[in-house]
């Protein structure tokens, strides 16, 4: 599984990264987490508002920090 955190490095983006890392650790699912911080790369996803979370190429959320439970549900599917 590939998880991408879209954002330019603000506190909300960092918080989302922490939550994603914890969700992956807690569920025990094998996933690669990476950060996407270049504007053009972010815009290629059609994301207008960060932070955003992308799982296997699909944008799951944009413009807010999801709960840890939400992230766990997304990565379990």
């Amino acid at each position: 599984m590939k998880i991408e955190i879209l954002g330019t490095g603000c506190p909300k983006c960092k918080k989302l990264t922490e939550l994603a890392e914890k969700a992956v650790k807690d569920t025990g699912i094998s996933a690669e987490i990476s950060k996407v911080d270049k504007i053009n790369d972010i815009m290629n996803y059609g994301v207008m508002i960060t932070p955003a979370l992308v799982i296997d190429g699909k944008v799951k959320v944009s413009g807010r920090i999801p709960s840890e439970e939400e992230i766990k549900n997304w990565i379990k599917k």
Partner: protein
Amino acid sequence: MAKECCCGGVRLIYACSGASDVGKLADSAARELANSNCGKMTCLAAVGAHLSGFVESAKGATENITIDGCSVACARKILDHIGVNSKSYVLTDMGYKKGETPVTKKTVDEIVKKISSEPAKNSKKSDKRNNSCC
């Protein structure tokens, strides 16, 4: 296309960009509003295509504004389909006749001025917000 990072209060603007004169006016007015920092214009077609980044951006925006040329209201209905409420402006409801309205800078400026000062119609009747765009 523009992007906001964690600033809150992100307003996205969509135009129907339809084939008629009022469709083109809706498009031009949306671009002008975006140029005036009234919000960020984004792609309605991408929302219609269910591209996840655009759909989730619409859901994450503080406010979504739709500008439709006519009462078919494609822009508003596309956002309705993804469960997103929008502030709706329909040019024919604002007095512009489909097929009879010249696409000129003067008309675009007039529409922008009206949208900036007129209250919008919300797409869901339950939503009581009725503020003007800018």
